[in-house]
């Protein structure tokens, strides 16, 4: 292993841990938000459904960095609370990835054929029960590939947090590089690290899909 990496290993590992930690919580939060937004839009809750749609379109039309700047600078100023770079990044990622996940989940909900919904209703299940027992379980299975694609994108997106001052893997690498200047070694190392993280996640996604996909 190159000397500059060995020398700074504890620091870089701490950065890696921040990246994993941030990815994990953003994934969980984003998934919860995505499911909530998708459900509200799917069952067409009046007003609230439109608000969700506007939120999703807003996020989809806004650069990630701008979203993080909003959660770091604008929201605290607007609502008068104090935040840290880490919390602001976490909030930004949850909002950002949640909006994209919402559209994937909604596509999954809509992919369940209407006659199957009729079959559930015909047995006396109410709309919520049909959603819970018939539509959602199939939707979740069918959206595993696109959802894992979002999770993988999210791991890479977390590097943007370094710009608002989070010492994630990228942030740590930039600091090391600023001190010792070995750009090729350092950037190759972190690029490979991101690649491994993403590849492992991709394998997990594939395995889950192979196991749970609904055969029709």
């Amino acid at each position: 292993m190159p000397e500059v990496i060995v020398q700074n290993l504890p620091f870089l590992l701490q950065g890696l841990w921040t990246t994993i930690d941030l990815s994990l919580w953003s994934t969980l939060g984003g998934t919860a938000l995505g499911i909530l937004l998708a459900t509200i839009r799917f069952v067409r809750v009046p007003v609230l459904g439109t608000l969700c749609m506007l939120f999703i379109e807003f996020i989809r039309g806004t650069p990630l960095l701008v979203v993080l700047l909003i959660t770091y600078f604008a929201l605290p100023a607007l609502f008068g609370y104090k935040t840290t770079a880490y919390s602001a990044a976490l909030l930004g990622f949850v909002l950002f990835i949640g909006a994209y996940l919402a559209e994937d989940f909604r596509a999954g909900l809509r992919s369940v054929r209407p006659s199957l919904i009729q079959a559930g209703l015909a047995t006396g299940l109410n709309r919520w029960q049909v959603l819970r027992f018939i539509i959602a379980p199939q939707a979740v299975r069918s959206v595993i590939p696109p959802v894992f694609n979002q999770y993988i994108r999210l791991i890479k997106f977390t590097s943007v947090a370094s710009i608002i001052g989070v010492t994630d893997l990228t942030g740590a690498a930039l600091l090391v590089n600023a001190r010792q200047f070995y750009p090729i070694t350092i950037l190759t190392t972190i690029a490979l690290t991101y690649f491994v993280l993403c590849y492992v996640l991709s394998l997990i996604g594939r395995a889950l899909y192979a196991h749970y996909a609904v055969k029709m």
Partner: protein
Amino acid sequence: MSDVPTIEIHDLHKSYGKTPVLRGCSMTVQRGEVVVVCGPSGSGKSTLIKCINGLEPYQSGSIQVEGIEVGAKATDLPRLRSRIGMVFQHFELYPHMSVLDNVALAQIYVLRRSRTEAYERAQQLLARVGLEDKSDSMPVDLSGGQQQRVAIARALALDPQAILFDEPTSALDPEMIHEVLQVMDQLASDGMTMVVVSHEMGFARRVADRVIFMDAGKIVEDAASEDFFSTPRTPRAAEFLSKILTH
């Protein structure tokens, strides 16, 4: 309750946008009756029976199931539907659940039976349709005929007052039609009230009390089964019969 017909439809009108689908249908199904509804495609047969359990809304007229108006705002549709089973053309088993879970689901969440009771009952019903050894299978691993028999077990699981069949054999290969019809014959002889949209004239002749012939959104003929086959009253029905029987 015995004097109230199981299903009573009066002057039912329904349209999709500006296209009329049902144009004044009236019919009555008494308890224990087997009624076969036939007619050319697009005549409104499937729409008619989907109106009976409120899967399709209607614009005017009335449908009463055991005296309860289906289209009334106050009607508890899930409750009404739980009293009327339905079997679909393409089976519509829940593909992510085992056969046993398919039959147990509504028992647990609609009838509030305990899991033990629901699974016991499901197992009994699977035995009744000849599929007791398939309870752990997934729907995709069954043949069409087997899937349709599971669908019948699922409908029976709610102990319904009547079962609606929407072309239950028209998606099946000829050799599988037989196994499904056998189950339906058995149901009929057990006294189940049945409304069957079907072109299976053999089944109609064997077990139907009445045959209803529909054309262009209207009930053209509503006759006792033997009369319908021996002396259809309308030329339209006679023409349809001659086509379908010589085919």
